[in-house]
C-alpha cells in the first residue's frame, strides 16, 4: 500500500502526561498517562461515558486538556493555536468516526478528495489519489455515489479512505464499527488490521472486546476517566 508514512518502529508517536479533562464539574479524564510507539495498534476499551472519546479527542487536538501535556509526533499540542492544530491534524492525523461524518452533498470521490484539496492539492491530483484509495479499499465502483445511497460499510470505507488521504502518522478511530452490522464491522476491522500490518500506527476506541483483541497489539481499559488496566495482546490474527 502507498499509504504508510516513514514510521520508525521505536519512535514514540503519542505521549500523554497526567492529562486531566473537566467539563464543568464533571471529570472526563483524570490523570491519564499513555505512550504509543510507531507501528503499534492500541485499542481503548471501557463502558460508555468513561472518557474514551475524550481521550481520542485530546490526541487529535480536537480538544485541549484542562491540565497535563499531549505530545503527538514529537509536537506538544498545547503549544499550538487553533490554526496550528488544524495544520498539524491535516499533516499527521487521520480520523474515523462511528457515524462516518461524510458530507451529504458530495459524492464519495469528492468526500475523499476534500482532505487533500484543503491543503491546496489540485482537484485533478486529489481526485486521482482518492480514486486509488477507494480502489484499494474496494469501493472504487461507488465513487460517484452520494453518502445517503451507500451502505454503512461502504460509508465507513470511504471515511477510512478520506482519513488516509494525507498519509497520516497516526490513524484514530472512534467506535468505527459501532454503527455497522457485524459483517460490515468485521470487514472494516480487517481493513484496519491490514493497514497496521504495513506499518500504520492505530489508536482505536471500541467497547467490543472481541474486536479489540482481534486487531490490537495492546489493550487499554479506561474506567471513570482513568487507565484501569493495560495489557498486551498475544497474537493478533
Amino acid at each position, binding site marked *: 500500500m502507498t499509504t504508510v508514512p516513514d514510521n520508525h518502529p521505536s519512535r514514540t508517536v503519542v505521549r500523554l502526561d497526567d492529562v486531566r479533562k473537566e467539563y464543568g464539574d464533571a471529570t472526563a479524564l483524570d490523570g491519564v498517562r499513555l505512550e504509543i510507539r510507531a507501528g503499534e495498534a492500541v485499542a481503548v476499551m471501557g463502558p460508555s461515558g468513561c472518557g474514551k472519546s475524550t481521550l481520542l479527542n485530546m490526541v487529535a487536538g480536537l480538544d485541549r486538556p484542562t491540565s497535563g501535556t499531549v505530545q503527538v509526533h514529537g509536537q506538544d499540542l498545547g503549544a499550538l493555536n487553533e490554526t496550528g492544530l488544524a495544520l498539524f491534524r491535516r*499533516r499527521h492525523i487521520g480520523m474515523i468516526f462511528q457515524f462516518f*461524518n461524510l458530507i451529504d452533498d458530495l459524492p464519495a470521490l*469528492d468526500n475523499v478528495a476534500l482532505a487533500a484539496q484543503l491543503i491546496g492539492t489540485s482537484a485533478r491530483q486529489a481526485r486521482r489519489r482518492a480514486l486509488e484509495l477507494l480502489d484499494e479499499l474496494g469501493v472504487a465502483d461507488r465513487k460517484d455515489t452520494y453518502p445517503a445511497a451507500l451502505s454503512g460499510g461502504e460509508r465507513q470505507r470511504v471515511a477510512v479512505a*478520506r482519513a488516509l488521504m494525507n498519509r497520516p502518522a497516526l490513524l484514530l478511530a472512534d467506535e468505527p464499527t459501532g454503527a455497522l452490522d457485524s459483517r460490515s464491522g468485521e470487514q472494516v476491522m480487517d481493513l484496519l488490521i491490514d493497514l497496521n500490518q504495513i506499518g500504520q500506527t492505530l489508536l482505536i476506541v471500541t467497547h467490543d472486546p472481541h474486536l479489540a483483541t482481534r486487531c490490537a497489539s495492546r489493550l487499554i481499559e479506561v474506567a471513570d476517566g482513568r487507565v484501569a488496566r493495560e495489557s498486551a495482546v498475544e497474537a493478533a490474527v
Partner: protein
Amino acid sequence: MSAVWRASRAAVKRRRLQTFVIGLVVLCSTTTILLGLGLLAAASAPFDNAFAQQRGAHTVATFDASKVSSARLAATARRPGVEAAAGPFGQAVLEMPEDWLWMPAGSLSVVGRAEPDGPVDRIHLLEGRWATAPGEIVINWPIAGTPGRDTLGTELRPRGGPALTVVGFATSMSKTAGGWVSPEQMERLRPATRQMLYRFSDAATERELRAGLSTATARLPADSLVTAQTYLALKRAFAAQADAYVPFMTLFGVLGLLISVLIVGNVVSGAVVSGHRHIGVLKALGFTPNQVMAVYLTMVSVPAVIGCVLGTLIGNAATGPILRVAFAGIDTGGAEIGTSWWPSVLSLAGMPALVVVTALIPSVRAHRLPAAQAITAGSSPRTGRGLRVQRRLGGTRLPRAVSLGLGRPFARPGRSLLTMAAIVLGVTTVTLTTGLTSTLLAFVDDDGATRVRVEAAGGSTVGGDTARRLSDRQTEQRLRSLPGADRVTVRGLTRVSLAGHTEPVYANFYRGDTRDLAPHVVDGHWPDRAGQAAAGPAFLDQHGLSVGDRITVLLNGRQTPVTIVGRLSDGNAKALDSNWQTLRRLDSSFQAAEYTVRLTQGADVRKYVDAVRAADPALRPSVLRPDNTVATTVVGFSSVFTVLLTVVASLGVFNTVLLDIRERRRDLGMLKSIGMTPRQVMTMTMSSVAALGVVGGLLGIPLGIVAHRLVVDHVGVIVFPEFTKQVWHLPQLAALMLAGVTIAALGALIPARSAARLTIAKVLHNE
C-alpha cells in the same frame, strides 16, 4: 393548551438568537412602516377633521359687486347641487403699513360678516370676540396659537382707510378672509367684490366642484364671477411639504414590508426545517399535528408581538419630529398636526398577523411531516441540479474552502432565494438613497462661488434704526464696484394680492444679474419683461394656474396684469417671482433692501464684507449658505431608512448563515477534524453568502434606479430638471455593487466567526 405553551416556551428558550432576530426584524420593519403611514395620515386627516368641524366651504366664489346684485347672489343658494351656502359678504382690500402685528406691509383682504357661525365656514374664534360695531376687526390667525390677549385692542391704520381696533383672533380652514369686520363697517369700505361660500352635494373632485359652481351661477351675468377657490387647492397647500415626502416614504415603507415578509418567512421556515427532529420528538410524545403547528406558530408570534409593540412605540416617537419638519411653515389653521392612532392600530394588528400568515406555510409542512421521517430527517438521499453544481465547483481551481462555500446556496435553493431577495431589496434601498442624494445635491447645485447677502436696514426684512446712507440704486452700484464683486442680484420683496384670491402672496421683484435664477425655470422662461412672472409648482397648483395664464396683481391700490411665463423647479407655495419693471407699474418708489453678490473666484470674502460695512453702516452683509432644508430632510430620512433596511437585510443573512451552520455542525466538525483551519472555515462561510451578495447587487441596482426615477418624478413640490435625474456613473454603480456584498458580509461575519471557533469535540460529542 398548556402542553403547547410549555413546548413553545422551551423552543423559544432553545432558539434565543433566532427569537431575537425575528423580534428585531419585526421591530425595524414596524418602525419603518409606521413612519410612512404616520406621514400619510398627517397629510390629510388633520385638515379633513378641522375642515369638517368648521363645515368648510367647498368653493369660495368672488363676484364683481358692480355686475351682480346681492339679492341675485343670495338666490344662488337655492340652485340644484348646492347643499348649503353663506353670503353674500362684502369684500375689500386694505393696504397695511409696515410691521402691523409683526407682519410686513401689504394687502389684507377683509370680509364683512355679522357673525362667525352659519351654514358654511363656521369661523373658529381663538381669542377675544366677534367684530360687531364699526371700527372693529377680527384678524385671521392661520398658524398655531394666537398672538395673545395683550394684542387685543391694537389699533390698525391701513393706508387710505379707517382705523380699526383688533377685537379678536379667529381661524377659518376655508381661508375666506384675512380679517372680518361688521357688515356696516364693510359698507363704509365700499366693497368692490362680494363673497359667496358654497358647499356642494358632489365635491370630491375639482371637476365636480367646477360643475357645481357653474350650475349655481348659471343665471348670473357671465362676467360677474371674478374667481373661485376650492378646498382641494387648500388641502393641497396644507399637505404640500408633506406630499413631497410621501412618495419616497411610501416606497421605503413598501420596501420595508417586503423585506420583513421575506425575512420572517425565511426565519420561520428555517426554524421549522431545522426543527424537524424536534417535531418528530413532539409527535412521538403524542402531540397532535395541530398542536405541533400551534407550537411553531407560538414560537414566532411571541417575538413578533414584542417586536411589533416596541417598533410601534419607536415609530410613534420618531413620527413627531418628522411631522414637525414636514409641516414646518404650513398654515395649519384649526387643524392639529399630530400622530394619528390608526397607523399604530394597523401595525399592531397587521404585523403580527403578517408574521403568523408567513409562518403558516412552513408550519403546515411541520403539520404534515410524518414522525419517523422527521426524526431521521437530514440523511434523506439528495438529488438534483444543486449537487451537480457542487460537483463541478469541486473540480475548479478555486481554493476548496471557497468552492465549498459557493456550493452551499445550491443545497438549500429555497432559503437562498429568500435571502437573496432580502439582499436585493437592501441594495435597491441603498441605490435609491444614493440616487436621491445625488439628485438633490445636483439640484441644490453649488457652483462653488461664494455669495454674500447684503440686507439694508429699514427694508422689509430687517428692522433697525440705522438710516440708510445710500439709496437703493447707489447701494447696488457700490456693491458692484467694490473689488471682488462678480454679479449682483437685487430683490424687492413685498406682499401683494391677486385679484380673486383672499390670501395675499409674496412677490419677489428682481433686477440686476438674474442669470443665476434662470436655470430654475423648468418650463417656459424667466420673466424678463414687464408684466411677466414665474412661480414654483406648489404656487401654481394651489392657485390653479399654469404657464400662459394671466393674473392681476394688486399693490397699494394699484393693479397690473401679469402673465405667468415660467414654471420654476421649486419654490415657496406663497410666492411668485417677477422683475423690477413689473414692480415699477405698481410702485415707482419702491426701495429694494436685499442684494445678493456673487464674488469672483478667489476673491477675499472678509475684505468684501468689511468694505460693504464701511460703505454704509446700515448694510448688513452675511456670507450665504445655500438653503437646502428639503434636500437635508430627504437625505436625512433616506439615510435613516437605509440604515434600518440594511440592518434588516443583514439580519436576514445572519439568520440564514446561522441556520446553515446549525444544520451543518457535524460537517464542520468533520472538516475541522481533517484539518480545515479556522480561516478556511471563515472563507467557506463568507463565500457561501458572497455569491448571493453579488447577484443581489446585480438585480438590486436596476431596481433601485427604477425606484429613484419613480420618486424624483413624483415629488410634487419640486420639478427636478432632467440633468439632476441623471445621476448614475460607472464608478458609483461599481461601488453600489459592493453594497450587496457588504450586506451579505455584515450578516455573515458573526456566525462565520462562531463557526470558525466551534469546538469540534463538543459538536461530535453532541451527536
